[in-house]
């Protein structure tokens, strides 16, 4: 098999807090049909054969829905393809001889665990602070008893599409997680089920966001450009309204 030859500059870091550096590796026989992660698999097979430590990177579903990829490729979270995660990106966008820089998502709230793996449990703690609906469990209610207008259901779904990957944080010049928080607050604020805890949710999730050391949104709009699920910055405007409303009411 003959394919592309590439030079990879990959962030290598032995563990949390350890010093790291960009190290160069050569890979060959890369098919344009491979996904970006499959290309990293090829590299790791080479490294294992040589007795070297393979590059650690997060992955799970490899079909763009789990939110585990956390690569910044040539300075852009999830790489150059819009609306896609790194695992969904194919190698056909690269030419033979290209050099690709691969770094982990960088933020105080996302400390590096090893190489390209970062700890995103801050997002779990933000969700635990209010990203849920407290309801008495029971059998499913009759659908007509709680009517939801079509437009609202669609808008809620647009926000619920967030997979919590953290690319918004990685791309934000201020390492702010506001797009994530806004998507999670909005998906529930738009539906009647989220109504009773609406104000408390906005306040507690934002408070947790701030505690985790994420920066402040300055409306740069980088987040929406890299979001693999195309969550828009108008979502952050909704969070800003929700927060203002909650500050007055709650």
């Amino acid at each position: 098999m003959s394919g592309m030859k590439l030079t990879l500059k990959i962030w290598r870091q032995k563990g949390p807090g350890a010093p790291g550096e960009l190290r160069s590796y050569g890979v060959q026989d890369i098919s344009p049909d491979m996904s970006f992660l499959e290309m990293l698999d090829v590299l790791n097979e080479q490294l294992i054969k040589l007795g070297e430590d393979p590059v650690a990177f997060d992955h799970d579903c490899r079909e763009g829905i789990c939110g585990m990829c956390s690569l910044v490729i040539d300075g852009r979270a999830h790489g150059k393809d819009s609306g896609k995660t790194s695992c969904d990106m194919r190698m056909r966008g690269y030419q033979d001889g290209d050099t690709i820089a691969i770094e982990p998502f960088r933020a105080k709230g996302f400390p590096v665990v090893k190489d390209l793996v970062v700890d995103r449990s801050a997002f779990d703690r933000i969700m635990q602070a209010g990203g849920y609906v407290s309801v008495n469990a029971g059998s499913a209610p009759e659908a007509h008893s709680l009517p939801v207008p079509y437009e609202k259901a669609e808008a809620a779904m647009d926000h619920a599409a967030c997979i919590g990957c953290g690319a918004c944080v990685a791309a934000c010049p201020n390492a702010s997680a506001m797009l994530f928080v806004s998507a999670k607050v909005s998906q529930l604020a738009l539906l009647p089920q989220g109504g009773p805890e609406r104000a408390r949710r906005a306040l507690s999730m934002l408070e947790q966001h701030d505690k985790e050391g994420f920066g402040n949104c300055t409306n740069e709009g980088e987040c929406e450009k890299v979001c693999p699920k195309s969550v828009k910055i108008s979502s952050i405007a909704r969070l800003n309204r929700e927060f203002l409303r909650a500050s007055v009411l709650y």
Partner: protein
Amino acid sequence: MIALMNALIRYATSSIGKKQIVGLTGLMLCGFLAGHLAGNFLLYKGEGVFNAYAQFLTSNPLLPYIELALLGVFMTHIGFALWVTWEDLLARPERYAVRRNAGGRTIGSSTMIYTGALTLAFLLFHVTVFKLSGEAEQHVRGLFGVVIDCFKSGAWVAFYAAALLGLGVHLSHGVQSAFQTFGVNHEKLTPGIKAAGLLFAAAMAVCFGMIPVLTKMGRIG
């Protein structure tokens, strides 16, 4: 009362609250700029009208209180903006080796702290020359004369032009950003708000900037 104080502290120390305070004070300062510019236009009417306007302003007994309030708005805007920027710097302790913008940033949005600092430096010079020096009272041609004398210097004109360009760049992001921060984002309204913000920024930079240039060219005076 304690509950209200706690709520205010919670608001003003939260990330969105801080930004909304920056946004609100920024919009108030935009109102001040518009009022200031309206007064400046009287320079085109000549010495008599402009000096009468200056006299009208300085003779107002409420002026010290208004100035104090304005100072408060400026300090709040600057203080909270510095706070936000400082936290943003701390939020990414390790920088990227390769950084590429994804297409959201503008010159205005990425330089807010620098254009803000330039505007502040300009403001300190501006207030010193036109207000604190007391030259207007001593000058035979009043405040009008101080303006004319100041802009005889090419260096001053260049400094003013650069600073006002900086102000324009600052406002090009600041105005529309303040609306977004207050949650005003709508597919119908937002393009209009962004356009109006850019227009306001350009109008402020050009209309304020024209005065030193036209004075230097001898068209005012």
